[in-house]
C-alpha cells in the first residue's frame, strides 16, 4: 500500500509543477522588452538584418517581389516597437490584408521565423529576448498563412 501511495504522491507533485508553470512567468515592466531589443536603434538594426536575410532566401524573397521594401521596413519597425512596449503605433494594414493572395504556407512561415531569428542573432539579441519577441509575433500566424 505504501508504494502505490508514494508513486501517487510523486505524480501529484509533477502535476502541481505543471499547473504552476504559467505562474513562473515573470511580469516585466511594460517597455522592458523594447529596451532589451535595444530601443528604436536595436529594432531598426534587427529589421535591416531581417530584410538582408530575406534577400538571400530564394524561396521567401519571391513573396516580396511586389513589396515596397521601404514601406515594409517602416511598418515592421513600428509593429515590433509597439508589440515590445515601445512608443509607437502600428499604422500599416491588417495582417490579413497584407498577406491576402500570397498563399504563404506553414513551412514558408516557419522559414521566415528562422530568418528573423538569424537577423536577431546577427544583431546580438540574447536567446531569451528573442523568445519573448517571437511569443508576441506568433499569434499573427493564422492571419498570415494560406491567405
Amino acid at each position, binding site marked *: 500500500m505504501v*508504494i*502505490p501511495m508514494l*508513486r501517487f504522491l*510523486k*505524480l501529484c507533485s*509533477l*502535476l502541481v*509543477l*505543471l499547473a504552476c*508553470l*504559467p505562474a*513562473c*512567468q*515573470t511580469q516585466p515592466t511594460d517597455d522592458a522588452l523594447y529596451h532589451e531589443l535595444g530601443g528604436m536603434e536595436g529594432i531598426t538594426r534587427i529589421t535591416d538584418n531581417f530584410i538582408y536575410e530575406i534577400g538571400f532566401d530564394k524561396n521567401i524573397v519571391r513573396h516580396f517581389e511586389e513589396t515596397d521594401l521601404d514601406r515594409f521596413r517602416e511598418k515592421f519597425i513600428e509593429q515590433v516597437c509597439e508589440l515590445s512596449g515601445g512608443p509607437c503605433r502600428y499604422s500599416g494594414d491588417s495582417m490579413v490584408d497584407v498577406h491576402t493572395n500570397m498563399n504563404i*504556407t*506553414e*513551412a*514558408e512561415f*516557419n*522559414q521566415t*521565423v*528562422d530568418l528573423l*531569428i538569424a537577423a536577431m542573432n546577427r544583431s546580438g539579441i*540574447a*536567446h*531569451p*529576448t528573442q*523568445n*519573448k519577441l*517571437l*511569443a508576441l509575433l*506568433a499569434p499573427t*500566424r*493564422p492571419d498570415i498563412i494560406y491567405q
Partner: protein
Amino acid sequence: MTTLRYLLAGGVLAFAGWAQAGAGKLQETAGVTQVEGSGGGGLVPWATLSGYDTRDEWSSSVFMTRVSLPDYRLQVFGASASIYDRLELSLARQTFELKNVPFGEREINQRILGLKARVMGDIVYGNWPQMAVGVQYKELENDAIASAIGAQDTDHGTDLYLAVSKAHLGVLWGYNLVWDLTLRATKANQFGLLGYGGDNNDSHEVMAEAAVAALLSRQLAIGFEYRQKPDNLSALEEEDAHDVFVAYLPNKQFNITFAWADLGIIAGEDNQSGAYVSLTGYLW
C-alpha cells in the same frame, strides 16, 4: 527473416519520406524518438509527431536507442514516417538482453507497430495544446520468459494513449518551456517485454506519464520524464520509470539524446538505472 522484413518496411517508409519530403516545422518541434518508436520524449510518447513535416509535407526518420542497466541492456531500432503533420506510422524492434544469465533464454525481442494521429492544436502556435491519440501494437517474438514468469498473454498486447503537449515561448526567464501529459491504457509488463497482464491484474489500466523540458537554445533541451507502469505480476514487482535528459538537436537531420533512466525493479533485480543514449536521423 524478421530483420529483413523490418529493413524492407524501413526502406519503404524512408522512400515514402524521400519521395515527398519536407522539413517545414520549426527546429526542435519534432522532438526525439521514444523507446517504443513513437515521437516523444524518451520514455513517454508526446503529442508531437516524429517528423518535421507540415500540413503540405511528408517526412521519415530512423532511430536507435540503447539503455544500459546493471543487469539488462535494452536496444531498440526503428523507422517512422510522418504524414501531413497529421499521422505518424512507426515500427520498432526492441532487444532486451539479460546480462547476468549464464545459460538458457538470454534475450527477449519485441516488435512494436505504432500509429499516432494529431487530433488538434499545434505545440507552438495557438492557445490550445497539441493533442494526439495513438496506439502501440506489441508482439513478443519469443515468449519463453513471459510464460515462465506467469504473464497472462505471452503473444501480443495493445497500448492506447492520449497525449497533450505544449510549448510556452519565453515563459521561463525568457527560455521556452515544453510539457507533455500522456494517459496510456495498458496491461504490458515492463513495456511488454515480460508479456501482457498477470495474476494481480489482467485488464487495461490507465497510467499517467508526463514530461517537462526547458529549451536552453534552438539546439539544446534538458528535461525530466515520469512514466507510471502497471504492477500485474504478484511474484515480480514492477515500479514506475523516470529519467532526466539532455537532447542535442543541431539541425533537422539529426539529434542525439543522453539520459539517466531509472526503470526501478525489473524481474526481481532492483535499482535498474543507467545511461540512455538515443539517435534519430531524418531522411528525405
